[in-house]
């Protein structure tokens, strides 16, 4: 892997981590009920997406 790719991946990783932390830090923007509802809503969608993508691999 060339240095430019490594640096790019490093920044990508750090930015993703920072974004995640920022999301956590702003948790006050959602009520607890909203957080739970959002997570529950995503679960079946994720299952469906997994099944679809797995079946689509070629």
């Amino acid at each position, binding site marked *: *892997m*060339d*240095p430019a*790719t*490594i640096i790019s*991946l*490093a920044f*990508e*990783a*750090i930015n*993703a*981590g*920072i974004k*995640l*932390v920022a*999301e*956590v*830090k702003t*948790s*006050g923007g*959602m009520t*607890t009920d909203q*957080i*739970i509802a*959002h*997570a529950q809503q*995503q*679960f079946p*969608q*994720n*299952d469906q*997406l*997994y099944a679809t*993508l*797995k079946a*689509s*691999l*070629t």
Partner: protein
Amino acid sequence: MKILSAGLLWTLASLMLFGMLACSDPYKDSLRVGDVITSTVPDAMKTVVDIRTAGLITKDEAGNALDYIHFVDLADRPYIQCVQDVHTSSKVGGLTSCANDFLSQLNDPAKLALIHVSESQGQAKLNVLIGTLTTGLTTLVSSLGGA
């Protein structure tokens, strides 16, 4: 170049993030991590397919990576339930226990074996992807201070 492996990148990221998360509400922050991971799963799955499409991993490797991400998603559900249960019971140290249990599952060698691929660039990209899913949890455990 293997010295700068994806694992090292995550160590770097963790060090930079360590201490950034000040838990104003450990319960909400714990829940939010679970929610963010749930929300990240679709992008992670799609990225695996993109990496496969780019020819960086084989069909079987992509399938295994999807299996791992799905496993993360499945493990996220009891984690969120655990956080809610701890909040109800007010158990001291419970939130940290929930997060550590979740992390232990994510780091299960048998599961991590699913995301080992033969091509180095594909492996690096997968590591970035998986690291994104775990960085929030690692940071959370650090910031909970045993709550």
